[in-house]
C-alpha cells in the first residue's frame, strides 16, 4: 500500500464485514510514534481464527485463497520497528475486534499517512448505515468526526447523500486546516 490511509480503509472494511454497528478509528501522533487503533463491535473472531489472520494464506474471501489485509499492515508497522496487536472477543457481552498498530514515524521505511480524509469519506459513502468515530490527535490538537452526531442532525437522510458527502469532505478539510495553523 502506498499510503497508511489505504491500509486503514482496508482493515476497516473487515470491521464492517464483521457486522460492526460502530467502528472507532483513532490515530494518535506523539513525538516520533504513530499509534493506529481500529476498534469495532462486530462479531469478533475465535482464538482459532485469530491465530491465523496474520498468515497471508488465511482469508474470509471466497474468490481466492490469499488474504493480505492484516499481513500488509503488519509489514508496514514492523518495517518501522513497530508492531501490530489484535484482540478479539466473540462473547455476547463484549464482542468485537481491536487492531492496534504502532509505527515509528522517523524511520526511513515509514509509509506516509496519505489522504486520510478520503479514506473516511470512502468508508461513509460505502457503508452509510454503520457508524464511524474518527479521531486524529497530533501535538497541535485533534480532528474528530462522529457519524452518530451527523445522523441525529440529518433525521433519516442517508449519510451517502452527495450533499452530505461533500459537507463531510469540507468539514474534514477545515478541521485539518485549523490543526495545521495551530
Amino acid at each position: 500500500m502506498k499510503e497508511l490511509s489505504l491500509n486503514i480503509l482496508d482493515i476497516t472494511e473487515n470491521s464492517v464485514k464483521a457486522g460492526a454497528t460502530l467502528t472507532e478509528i483513532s490515530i494518535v501522533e506523539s513525538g516520533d510514534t504513530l499509534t493506529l487503533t481500529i476498534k469495532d463491535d462486530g462479531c469478533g473472531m475465535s482464538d482459532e481464527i485469530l491465530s491465523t489472520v496474520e498468515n497471508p494464506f488465511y482469508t474470509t474471501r471466497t474468490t481466492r485463497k490469499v488474504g493480505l489485509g492484516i499481513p500488509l499492515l503488519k509489514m508496514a508497522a514492523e518495517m518501522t520497528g513497530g508492531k501490530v496487536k489484535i484482540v478479539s472477543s466473540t462473547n455476547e457481552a463484549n464482542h468485537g475486534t481491536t487492531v492496534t498498530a504502532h509505527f515509528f514515524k522517523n524511520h526511513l521505511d515509514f509509509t506516509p499517512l496519505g489522504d486520510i480524509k478520503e479514506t473516511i469519506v470512502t468508508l461513509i459513502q460505502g457503508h452509510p448505515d454503520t457508524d464511524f468515530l474518527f479521531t486524529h490527535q497530533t501535538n497541535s490538537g485533534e480532528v474528530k468526526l462522529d457519524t452518530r452526531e451527523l445522523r441525529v442532525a440529518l433525521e433519516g437522510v442517508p449519510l451517502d447523500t452527495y450533499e452530505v458527502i461533500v459537507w463531510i469532505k469540507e468539514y474534514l478539510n477545515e478541521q485539518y486546516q485549523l490543526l495545521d495553523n495551530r
Partner: protein
Amino acid sequence: MKSLAELQAIKDKMKDKVVIREGVSSTRVVVGMATCGIAAGARPVLSAFVEAVNEGGLAGTVTVSQTGCVGLCQYEPIVEVYEAGKDKVTYVKMTADKAKEVVEKHLKGGKVVTEYTVANCE
C-alpha cells in the same frame, strides 16, 4: 466554520427528494474495494465516480456502490456497470480520469468505452 446546522439545512432540502429517488435508479456502478482493489488505486476511482455522477446530474438514475474482491485481482481497479435490460460491462485497470470518461461517454452518452473493458484487456 462548518456546522451541524448546515446538515439540518441539507436535511430540509433533501426530505422531499429522498422519496422520489428510491427505486428509480436503473443503473448501478460498482467499484471493487477489497485489499487488491484498494492497493491498485480504487479509492480515487470511486471518488471520481461519485463526484462525476452527482455533478453531472445523474444522481437520480445512477447509484455508485462498493463491493469486495471480484476475483480478477490483476486487473484492479475493476468497475462493473449494471444497466437494466443490458449485459453487465466490466471496466478494468481504471483510473480517476478513465472514470470521468466512462461517466461522460457511457453513463451520459450511452456508448460503452470498449477500450477499457475486460474484453479488450491483454
